[in-house]
C-alpha cells in the first residue's frame, strides 16, 4: 500500500513531472478545442518527440494531453457549434443553444465541473476495479457491440426534432455515407464509383465538421446583421447547489462513460452519445427542453467522455488492450520506450499502474484549474459580430478538415457536407442523426456481419445468439423495451401491470 501511494505521488512530488502534466493538460485543452486536431495525432507526434526522454516523463505529458483534450472538445462545441472532437458532438446539441441564449460562460463552467467529476469517477473505477472491469469487457462479443450500436441508433428518435420520419431518413443518410470506401472484410470497394480518392471512405470527423460548423455558418448568414447575443459572464463557476442538483445524473453518466470507455471496441464519442440518450430518457423535468439549452444535455455527455478516459486505461494497463485510439498510441509509445505492454505490464513494471493513476488525478485537477480560468474571455467570442465570426468558423472548419488525415479530399467533404447539411436544415431535417449514423453505422454493420458469419449465416443461429449470454440478454431486452416505449402498446402494458399490482395489493 505504501509503495502504491509512493508511485501515485511520483508526479505530485517531482516538480518536473508536475510541470509536464500541467503543460500537457493545458496543451490538450487547446488541441482538443481545435476541430480536426485530435489527441490521437498529438500523442503520436509526441512519440518521436519524447524518444530520448525517460518513459515516466513521456507518459506524464501524454496523460495530461489526453485528459485535457477530451475536455477541450466541448469549448468549440459550445461557442461555435463545431465539436472539437467527436466526443463533443452530444455537447453541441445543448451547449450551442445555451451560447445563443447568452449563457456560454455558465455552460463552460458547468461543463468544466462535471468533466472534472466524471474524470474522477473514471479514475476511481480504474484504481479500484480495473482487473474485474477488464475481464468483463472481454466478454463483449461482436453481437454485443452490434446491440450497443443499435441502442445508440435509437437515439435518432430523440434527436429527430419535429418529425421522426425525417430523423430516420437523416440517420439512414449517415449510415450510407459510412459505407463509402474499401470494405476491409472483403477487400471490395463500395460506392467509390471507381475513384481511388473514395477508397479511404469519408472521415466522420469531416462530416461532423461540415454538418455542424459549415452548415451552421451558412444557416446564420440569414440573419448575419442581427446583433450578437450579449453574454452573461457572472456566476461562471456553478454554485454548489447547481452541482448537487446535477450530481445524480453526473454519476449515472460517468458510469456509462467508464463502462463504454473500458470496452476495446468503443470510446468517448459513443459514451457521450449514450449518456445524452440516457439523460433524455431519465430526466423528466430538464432545466429547458432538450436541444434548446438543457443543462442536463450538457452534463451527461461531458461527464461521460471524461469518465471514459479512466475507463480506456482499464484494459490497457491490465491486459495491454487499448480501450480507444489514444491508449493504442500510448501502447506503441511504451514499446518504443522499451516496455512490453500486455497482461504482464503490471508485473514487469509495477510502478506504472499507480503512476498513471496519479498522473490522471493530477491532470484532472489541472483541468479544473485551467478550465475555469479565462472563461469570460472565451464567452466573448460569441459576442463577436457575425460578419467576422462566420468567416472564422469556415476557416477553422477547413483547416480542421485538412488536419484529420492531411488529405485535401477531407476539405471537400467538409464543404460538401456543409452545403448538404444546410439544405437539410432548411427542410427541417436535424443533422445530429446524420452524424450518429456515420459513427454508429459501421459498428452495427461490421458486428452484424461478424455475428452472421460466426453462425454460418443462419437466422435461427443469429436469434439464438441474441439470448446466449447474460450481457447479450440484458442488451436485447433493453432495446426491445425502448422500442416498445415508443409504441402505443406501452401505456396499455404499463396500465395492465399497474392494474395487476393494484389487484395484488388488495
Amino acid at each position, binding site marked *: 500500500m505504501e509503495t502504491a501511494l509512493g508511485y501515485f505521488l511520483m508526479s505530485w512530488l517531482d516538480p518536473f513531472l508536475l510541470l509536464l502534466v500541467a503543460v500537457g493538460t493545458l496543451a490538450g485543452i487547446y488541441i482538443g478545442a481545435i476541430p480536426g486536431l485530435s489527441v*490521437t*495525432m498529438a*500523442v*503520436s*507526434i509526441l*512519440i*518521436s518527440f519524447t*524518444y*530520448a526522454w525517460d518513459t515516466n516523463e513521456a507518459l506524464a505529458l501524454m496523460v495530461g494531453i489526453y485528459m485535457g483534450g477530451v475536455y477541450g472538445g466541448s469549448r468549440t462545441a459550445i461557442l461555435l457549434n463545431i465539436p472539437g472532437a467527436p466526443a463533443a458532438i452530444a455537447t453541441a446539441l445543448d451547449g450551442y443553444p445555451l451560447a445563443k441564449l447568452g449563457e456560454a460562460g455558465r455552460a463552460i463552467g458547468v461543463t468544466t465541473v462535471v468533466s472534472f467529476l466524471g474524470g474522477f469517477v473514471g479514475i476511481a473505477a480504474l484504481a479500484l476495479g480495473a482487473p474485474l472491469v477488464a475481464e468483463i469487457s*472481454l*466478454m*463483449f*462479443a*461482436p453481437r454485443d457491440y452490434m446491440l450497443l450500436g443499435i441502442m445508440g441508433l435509437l437515439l435518432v428518435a430523440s434527436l429527430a426534432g419535429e418529425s421522426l420520419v425525417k430523423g430516420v431518413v437523416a440517420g439512414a443518410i449517415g449510415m450510407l455515407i459510412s459505407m463509402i*470506401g*474499401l470494405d*476491409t*472484410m*472483403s*477487400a471490395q*470497394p463500395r460506392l467509390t464509383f471507381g475513384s*481511388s480518392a473514395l*477508397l*479511404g*471512405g469519408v472521415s466522420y470527423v469531416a462530416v461532423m465538421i461540415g454538418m455542424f460548423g459549415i452548415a451552421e455558418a451558412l444557416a446564420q448568414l440569414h440573419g448575419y446583421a442581427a446583433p450578437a447575443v450579449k453574454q452573461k459572464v457572472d456566476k461562471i463557476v456553478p454554485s454548489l447547489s447547481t452541482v448537487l442538483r446535477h450530481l445524480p445524473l453526473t454519476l449515472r453518466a460517468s458510469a456509462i462513460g467508464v463502462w463504454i470507455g473500458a470496452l*476495446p*471496441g468503443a470510446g468517448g464519442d459513443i459514451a457521450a452519445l449514450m449518456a445524452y440518450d440516457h439523460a433524455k430518457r431519465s430526466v423528466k423535468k430538464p432545466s429547458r427542453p432538450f436541444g434548446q439549452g438543457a443543462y442536463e444535455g450538457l452534463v451527461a455527455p461531458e461527464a461521460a467522455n471524461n469518465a471514459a478516459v479512466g475507463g480506456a486505461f482499464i484494459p490497457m494497463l491490465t*491486459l*495491454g*488492450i*487499448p480501450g480507444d*485510439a489514444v491508449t*493504442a*498510441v500510448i*501502447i*506503441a509509445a511504451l*514499446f*518504443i520506450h*522499451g*516496455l*512490453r*505492454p*500486455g*497482461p*504482464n*505490464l503490471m508485473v514487469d513494471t509495477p510502478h506504472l499502474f499507480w503512476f498513471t493513476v496519479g498522473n490522471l488525478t493530477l491532470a484532472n485537477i489541472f483541468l479544473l484549474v485551467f478550465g475555469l480560468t479565462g472563461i469570460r474571455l472565451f464567452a466573448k467570442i460569441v459576442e463577436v459580430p457575425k460578419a467576422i465570426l462566420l468567416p472564422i468558423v469556415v476557416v477553422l472548419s477547413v483547416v480542421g478538415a485538412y488536419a484529420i*488525415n*492531411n*488529405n485535401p479530399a477531407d476539405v471537400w467533404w467538409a464543404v460538401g457536407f456543409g452545403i448538404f447539411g444546410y439544405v437539410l436544415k432548411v427542410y427541417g431535417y436535424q443533422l445530429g442523426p446524420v452524424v450518429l449514423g456515420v459513427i454508429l453505422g459501421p459498428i452495427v454493420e*461490421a458486428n452484424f*456481419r*461478424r455475428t452472421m*458469419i*460466426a453462425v*454460418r449465416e443462419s437466422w435461427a443461429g443469429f436469434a439464438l445468439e441474441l439470448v446466449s449470454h447474460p450481457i447479450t440478454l440484458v442488451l436485447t431486452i433493453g432495446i426491445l423495451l425502448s422500442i416498445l416505449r415508443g409504441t402505443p402498446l406501452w401505456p396499455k402494458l404499463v396500465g395492465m401491470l399497474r392494474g395487476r399490482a393494484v389487484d395484488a395489493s388488495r
Partner: protein
Amino acid sequence: MRLNRRTLLAGATALAALPPPRIAGAQEFPARPIQGTIQWGAGGSTDAVTRAVAPIVEEKLGQKLVLTNRPGGTGVIGMQYVHGQRADGYNILFGAENPQLYGVLGLSDLSYKDFYPLVLLARGTPVLVARKDAPWADAKALIDHVLANPDTVKMGATGVGGLPFVVHAMLAAQVPGFKVTQVPFDGDGPALTALEGGHVDFMAAVWGAARERIRAGRIKALAVIANERLEGLDAAPITATLPGFAKYLPWGPFFGAFVKKETPEPIVAKLEKAFVEAANDPRFKEFCANFGVVPMGIGGKEAIAFLERWQSVTAWLLADAGAAKVDPATLGIKRL
C-alpha cells in the same frame, strides 16, 4: 609544388571540368526537412516501427524528418500521396506489405515496383495461436480437429489479404479439406482481443502482437509459421508438421521506407546509406527485439528481391484461394 602560370591554368581547367554547382547542391541534400508519409494510422505497427527508426535517421542525415499519418484504403491513400509528389527525395513513404497486393485485389495500379526501397526495416513472424481453453496443443491437433469437423471452427481474421487470411490459404493449400469459418475483425489487435475473450477459436497473428498474451497464458501458441523456432516461445515450427510450408517461408508482414523510382541516383544513395545505417543501429535492433519483429536492415537489390518473392508467394496463394480479382499472371507476377 612550384606555382607557375601553367599549373594555375591546369587548375582552372580542372575546376571548369568539375560538375556544375547544381550537383554540388545535390550533395548538400537534404537542405530542408524531409516529409515522411506513414500509410497506416497512429498506434499501428507501421506507425510504431517508423517512429522508432525516425530519430536515428534524423541523426544520420542531419536533417528533420516530419512524419505524417495518411491512412485509408489499406494504405492506398498514403501511397498515392507520395506518388503524386516530386521525385526529389524530400518525400518518403513508410509502408507495410499491402501495396504488393493492390494489383491482384484490384485496389490500385501502384505497387512497390513504382518505388525504390531505401530500406526494409523489419519483418514479423506469424504464430498460430488458439484460445487458452481450446482442446489443441499443437498444429497437428488443430488440423485433425478441423478435418473431422469442417466449417465449425471459428478463425479470427483481418479481412481478405490480411495475415490470417494468407496463412489460412497456405494451410488450405497444404491440407486439402481444411475448412474453417473466418470471422474478420478490424485488425490483429481486435481479432486477438476476440480470441482472448473466446469469441473465436484460433488465428494466425504476428509474434509481436501475440507474445505478451502468450507469456501471460491468456492465449496459447500452436506453431510458428517459420522454418525455425522463435526465441522465447515453446512452439514447434509449422514445417515440423507440414514440410510443404517451407516453400512459402520466410513469410510475414514487413515494414520499409521507399522513395519514388524516378528519384535521382545521388539522392537515393545518400538516403539509402542513412536508412540502412539507422536500421542496423543497435538502438533500433533493441526496439525490434522488444517489439517482437525481426530486424532486416537491407536496401537496394536485396530488398527488391525480397519484395518480388513476397509478392509472388502471396499473390499466387490468393489466386489459388479464389480471392484474387486480377490474375497475377496478367500483372507480370511470376509463380515461384
